């Protein structure tokens, strides 16, 4: 049962061969057994999960079940969920119990009837690529416990990879769904900016943040995205578009599909084993009838520099709300109001979060705005224009997700720049606001998973999912299971 797809789980629930309570119990027991070592969850509340499962069973019995009703899910701890402690992996929110639900929570749990298994660990305020910045401790990669699961959605990735949950939510500001999906052998999708509501999703960089599904196949991601997406008046950047069935293209043949290969993604800077696996995936797509087209993203080398201006600038503004007044941590001792702010923020934020706030404060400060923030916004346009030119010649773009497989804990923790460079292939996609996904395409000599990235044009998620699905019908990388968890 723990290896079943969401479709298979839905069928089992519909056939009453298992109840949502039984299924939820099964996962809660696995979490109780395996989470102490993996640390994939920050908060688990068995009573709340089982109550939701009972409600789902009642819905199923009443014949009111949707395709996801009664299926458990791990929620990244960045989504506010009423009555659940919602920490964003920060000391700042260690005791914050959300008084309201994020729209993603409303859609997946209240409307679709999914059952939350708890709040998944992550990098603090989603700032990190290894899940080592969490106040609640690092997450271990189920494929090799000495290694990181990637980040920032590292707890979500480890939970699904270790079968502590059949699926999870993630958020992706610069690669935070795709990179952990690659490092943990999962399929993850970051939608077009504006497709999934950001309401109740704790903000990091508002012009880049986007939520999406993390699961074990493109088919599962399609089901989840269909439930998550949609216009939301409560998010001012949510796009007014009709509802979509993101699974509608699944099964269409890939013959004649034009896959763009950006030459910048196939040069130096990518590990040889990752590159070999991506090349093998290209050969597989050619067998499936796809045609390869060389494209160029000449400004892609500027993506990381521009991102580390835009994301910290927006973060410094967003995180100014954590001041020890309305919610969250407050320093126990202080002299006056300014001292209370300064001590609260010094004690409540971790080192990486503080670093980014400082960068953001600097680039937005008097006299520097044009040279940094405005310049970065202009480069962002150049990057988006590169993609527009490339998509005039191809349907989807393919390349590696991450230049390496999962690295060892502590390996990059002391050098922020090295850590930032683990997102070189994913960041440009966020800057352009395009949909991107990562899916498994092989393993390195040490048995660590390798992911490839597929990038689509705006609103082309349904096609992107089918391109991934077609590959997954022909290969079984996505079905491999970490040792000891079979």
């Amino acid at each position, binding site marked *: 049962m723990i290896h079943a797809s969401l479709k298979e789980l839905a069928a089992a629930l519909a056939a009453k061969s298992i109840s949502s309570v039984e299924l939820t119990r099964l996962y809660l027991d696995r979490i109780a057994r395996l989470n102490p070592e993996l640390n994939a969850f920050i908060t688990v509340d068995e009573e709340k999960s089982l109550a939701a499962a009972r409600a789902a069973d009642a819905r199923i019995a009443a014949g009111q079940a949707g395709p996801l009703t009664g299926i458990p899910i791990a929620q990244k701890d960045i989504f506010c969920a009423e009555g659940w402690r919602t920490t964003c992996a920060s000391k700042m929110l260690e005791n914050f119990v959300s008084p309201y639900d994020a729209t993603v929570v409303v859609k997946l749990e209240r409307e679709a009837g999914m059952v939350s298994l708890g709040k998944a660990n992550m990098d603090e305020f989603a700032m990190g690529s290894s899940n080592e910045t969490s106040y609640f401790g690092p997450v271990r990669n189920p494929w090799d416990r000495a290694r990181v699961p990637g980040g920032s959605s590292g707890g979500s990735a480890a939970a699904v990879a270790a079968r502590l949950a059949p699926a999870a939510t993630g958020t992706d500001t610069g690669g935070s769904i795709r990179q952990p999906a690659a490092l943990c052998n999962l399929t993850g999708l970051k939608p077009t900016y504006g497709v999934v509501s950001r309401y109740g999703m704790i903000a990091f960089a508002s012009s880049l943040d986007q939520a999406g599904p993390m699961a074990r196949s493109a088919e599962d991601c399609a089901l989840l995205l269909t439930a998550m997406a949609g216009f939301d008046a409560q998010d001012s*950047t949510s796009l007014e578009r009709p509802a979509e069935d993101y699974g509608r293209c699944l099964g269409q043949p890939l013959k004649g599909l034009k896959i763009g290969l950006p030459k910048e993604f196939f040069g130096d800077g990518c590990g040889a084993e990752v590159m070999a696996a991506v090349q093998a995936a290209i050969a597989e797509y050619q067998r499936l009838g796809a045609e390869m087209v060389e494209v160029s993203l000449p400004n892609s080398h500027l993506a990381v520099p521009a991102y580390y201006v835009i994301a910290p600038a927006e973060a410094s503004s967003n995180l100014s709300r954590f001041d020890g007044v309305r919610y969250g941590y407050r320093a126990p001792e202080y002299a006056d109001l300014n001292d209370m702010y300064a001590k609260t923020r010094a004690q409540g934020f971790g080192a990486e979060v503080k670093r980014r706030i400082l*960068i953001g404060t*600097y680039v937005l400060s008097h006299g520097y705005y044009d040279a940094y923030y405005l310049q970065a916004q202009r480069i962002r346009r150049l990057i988006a224009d590169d993609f527009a030119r490339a998509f005039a010649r191809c349907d989807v773009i393919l390349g590696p997700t991450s230049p390496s497989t999962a690295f060892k804990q502590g390996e990059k923790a002391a050098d922020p720049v090295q850590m930032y460079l683990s997102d070189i292939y994913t960041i440009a996609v966020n800057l352009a606001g395009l949909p991107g996904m990562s899916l498994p395409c092989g393993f390195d000599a040490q048995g660590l998973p390798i992911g490839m990235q597929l990038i689509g044009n705006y609103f082309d998620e349904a096609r992107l999912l089918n391109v991934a699905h077609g590959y997954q019908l022909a290969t079984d990388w996505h079905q491999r299971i970490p040792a000891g968890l079979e």
Partner: protein
Amino acid sequence: MSLTLSEVERIAHLARIEIGSAEAEACRDQLNGIFALIEAMQAVDTAGVPPMAHAQDVCQRLREDRVTHHDPDGRWRDRFQAVAPETEAGLYLVPKVIE
């Protein structure tokens, strides 16, 4: 570009983050590493390139300026203040700012 120690302290003050001098020094080195990465951006001629804030050409959606929520019995206020560090009689308490 290279930040000095006093610049780091000034930024930390602007960001309302208390920082000790040893911490400021370690922080300066890391920030300078990051700014070295960012510098690659400065060599690019972007004259005439319009800055991009959103991928779609959309305007900020406006809504009517009217009250959307009423809270006559203070139930919602209580819920939202339950997560505050310190409140009294429906007010947020902060250190005294006016003598």
